[in-house]
């Protein structure tokens, strides 16, 4: 990014983790450098982490089973943690969840640090738990996560299907923090990715200053539910 408001950029290496407290108004721009990336993500109110991203409230408030520009991520307290303010992909998966050690071992075989060094196999659940532990959080704080850049569609009979090549090289998605949000991310492969080879991808992050949503913000206006979510979020900061 060439934007002068960018505070810094960094890359989440393939299969690695990242966490940071995004201050209210900050914008996180994520770029899928090579295409086919997956970013497992969880979000917490940093001041009171028992308030956290809630998959069900996010889906039912907006009547969606996908995330894209104009939608928001709700906490369990009726407030908005993040808004999706830009998106070149059109579909990010909120239902597929994360892998765990057993899933990764069964799918890709064993690959330990001792032999593979930093290319060793990592899984979503353990990655979340280690990163959460750095903030004093644990297994009780692990809730359903979002998978950015991945697409899982649902058929009429409820079957879940991972859509390959949903995110091309250079694809991006941009989140604006509406609270002081602890964001916990990793680039482990999506648990439903049919690729038989363990092939996580790098994701470039750019963090920049922004401003809280204005009166005419598209995420605020996209649904009356979101409008009320913004009101409740703004009251929290009064």
């Amino acid at each position, binding site marked *: 990014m060439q934007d002068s408001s960018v505070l810094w950029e960094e890359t989440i290496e393939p299969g690695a983790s990242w966490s940071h407290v995004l201050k209210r108004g900050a914008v996180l721009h994520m770029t899928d450098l090579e295409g086919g990336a997956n970013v497992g993500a969880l979000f917490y109110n940093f001041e009171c982490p028992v308030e956290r991203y809630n998959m069900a*409230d996010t889906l039912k408030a907006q009547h969606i*089973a996908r995330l894209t520009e104009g939608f928001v991520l709700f906490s369990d307290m009726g407030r908005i943690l993040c808004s999706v303010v830009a998106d070149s992909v059109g579909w990010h998966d909120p239902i597929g969840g994360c892998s765990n050690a057993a899933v990764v071992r069964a799918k890709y075989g064993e690959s330990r640090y001792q032999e593979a060094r930093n290319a060793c196999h990592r899984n979503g659940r353990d990655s979340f738990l280690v990163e959460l532990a750095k903030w004093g959080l*644990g297994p009780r704080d692990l809730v359903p996560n979002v998978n950015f850049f991945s697409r899982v569609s649902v058929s009429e*009979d409820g079957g879940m299907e991972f859509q390959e090549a949903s995110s091309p090289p250079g694809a991006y998605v941009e989140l604006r923090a509406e609270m002081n949000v602890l964001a916990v991310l990793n680039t482990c492969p999506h648990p439903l990715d049919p690729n038989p080879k363990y092939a996580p991808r790098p994701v470039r992050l750019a963090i920049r200053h922004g401003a809280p949503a204005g009166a005419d913000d598209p995420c605020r206006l996209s649904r009356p*539910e979101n409008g009320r979510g913004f009101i409740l979020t703004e009251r929290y900061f009064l």
Partner: protein
Amino acid sequence: MSGTRIVESRLDPARAVYRFEVPAGEPWLHEVKKGQYFRIVDLKGNQAVDTLFYNAHDYSDRYSAQDTIREQRNIYLTTGTKLMSTGGAVLLTIVADTCGRHDTLGGACANESNMVRYAIEKRFMHACRNSFLKGAIEWGRGLEKRDLTCNINFFMNVPVTPEGKLTFEDGISDPGKYVEMRAETDVLVAISNCPQLNNPCNAYNPTPVEVLIWEGL
């Protein structure tokens, strides 16, 4: 795996070791031991039964909606569904189901989510997450808000479309329909018999449900 599998149980309610009618709007917490069978009966029809499960010996290992639907590659729960924990264990298996489809994406209603979904003035209305909190406080043993995560909505119909839309539809349950599970490990069951009056999940009329437990076969 198909999204609907109607299977009747051969267990006789007269031989159950435990029977209790959970009134509308009330919580119910109870342990079910490994090998026992646990049934929920929708007595009056179209009643959403919000349900959480925990490993009875470690509440941090609890029901996971995402692990459950990922393992079976299907978002609807029915006969044959293994209810997975966050730690990767099978907590219970659905062994009979006369309704055919149950939701696990719609979550539990709350004062706060009702304010978002319907109107800020709806804060006063009784909601599942208040019932769960009341149940957790009374149960004690360290159970608290952090432990109230994703739940199952038995008898509730929340279809997802191929275009990625999610809707709350009229129920597909009728009076007397039931779902039955076998506990694969000792579990704590927490139910909120849903008091929601703002959408059709209870046909706008919350009603009691019955819970039954049988010893293992």
